[in-house]
């Protein structure tokens, strides 16, 4: 009898565990926070907060002001020696590859700094210069308040940790914002062709 009861209990526990773990990993698709946020935004695009940003040219705007276009957004700090350079390179290439729709005003690129204390408009402009940004369709910007930065990174799912040496460790990605101003997709850096493919596919209809 104990054996039968144990078998029943074990079967129930196994079933429960499988269901629970499936739920906890989005159907065994996402084991890390990074994958989870990608799966999540693809299923349910995320509304973004209207946070005031200051651009490399010194003008103020919010992401909501840019609605009606597709936006490619990345998060950087200009002193970053590693990942942000990869992101900068990707954006430079995307700017070239998507030159047509960019010229029609249908796509914009925005690099947002999470180190606003250091990244003044001058630093942001220098950053764009280093990667050969060609026109005003690629902007760099910083949030004006700590609260704004927190809301932005929370909405985008970007985690930034000071590395102790004055720099930051952060998850690097290219974020796609749809014309309704919602975060719709997230891509790994290093594969700009995947990004341009998706964006161009979305532009056609």
């Amino acid at each position: 009898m104990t054996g039968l009861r144990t078998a029943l209990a074990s079967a129930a526990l196994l079933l429960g565990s499988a269901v629970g773990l499936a739920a906890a990993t989005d159907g065994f698709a996402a084991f890390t926070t990074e994958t989870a946020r990608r799966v999540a935004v693809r299923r349910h695009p995320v509304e973004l907060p209207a946070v005031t940003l200051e651009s490399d040219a010194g003008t103020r705007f919010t992401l909501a002001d840019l609605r009606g276009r597709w936006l490619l957004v990345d998060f950087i700090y200009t002193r970053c020696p590693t990942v942000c350079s990869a992101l900068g390179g990707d954006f430079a290439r995307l700017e070239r590859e998507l030159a047509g729709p960019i010229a029609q005003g249908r796509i914009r690129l925005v690099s947002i700094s999470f180190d606003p204390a250091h990244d003044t408009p001058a630093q942001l402009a220098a950053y764009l210069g280093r990667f050969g940004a060609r026109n005003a369709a690629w902007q760099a910007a910083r949030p004006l308040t700590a609260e704004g930065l927190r809301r932005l990174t929370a909405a985008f799912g970007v985690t930034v940790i000071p590395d102790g040496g004055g720099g930051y460790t952060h998850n690097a990605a290219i974020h796609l914002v749809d014309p309704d101003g919602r975060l719709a997709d997230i891509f790994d850096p290093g594969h700009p062709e995947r990004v341009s493919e998706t964006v161009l596919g979305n532009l056609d209809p």
Partner: protein
Amino acid sequence: MTGERRSLPVLPAALLMLVSMAPAVRRFLEASMTAQMLVQLPLLVAVGWLASRAVPARVLARVERWNRSGVSGLILATAVAAFWMLPRSLDASTSQPLVAAAKYLSVPLLVGLPIALSWRRMGFVVRGLILAELVATCFRLGWLYRISPIRLCSSYGLDDQQRLGGYLLAVGGGLLVWLGWKLLWGRFETPSTARPQEGRGYREPVQTLHCRMPASVASIRSAPSRSPERKERATMARSIEVIPTARSV
């Protein structure tokens, strides 16, 4: 008297739990991936293990009816432990208070406690299998963390992850050496001390209990034994001796 007896065994578990919940301690335990996986989670498992001493015999007896050879407890503990090994669970428990609370409740109650209640009921083979699997898990995770160029936790840096990988390999290696030592020179089926007090805790289930035995032997086995370990072993030896005759009957 009884109340005092009941409250004392829970004391170490309660103390350990309180210490691990103290804000400063918790901050330290969650400041690095290494501390969270190698100190905090094992600490919470230990809390549950210690708390098992305070479970009343009545409840134990009821649980044991559903937990033959510790199988159900093993499944529950494994599944919950697997959940808390997911990188996203580690992340969430450091940033979301609700998830943190779930961790502090579920790891002691659903991992430590079931393992404690099941371990002594498990046979030699199952215990060996679990230990071997634990070693393998340490090696698999350790290796993954050492070589992965991708950060698995958003809250922790790559250097932290690689350091944890090194430690996990060391822990796995240590466990392996210990396991090998036990295989060569030790005993697995240690009849660990039956708790002397009556009515609380539980006694080492004697393997021969599962065998069919004649009423005479059963009466020997079920004779009230407030006896210390030695006497119980003698009883066990007697019952083992009798079984062959029982078969021939």
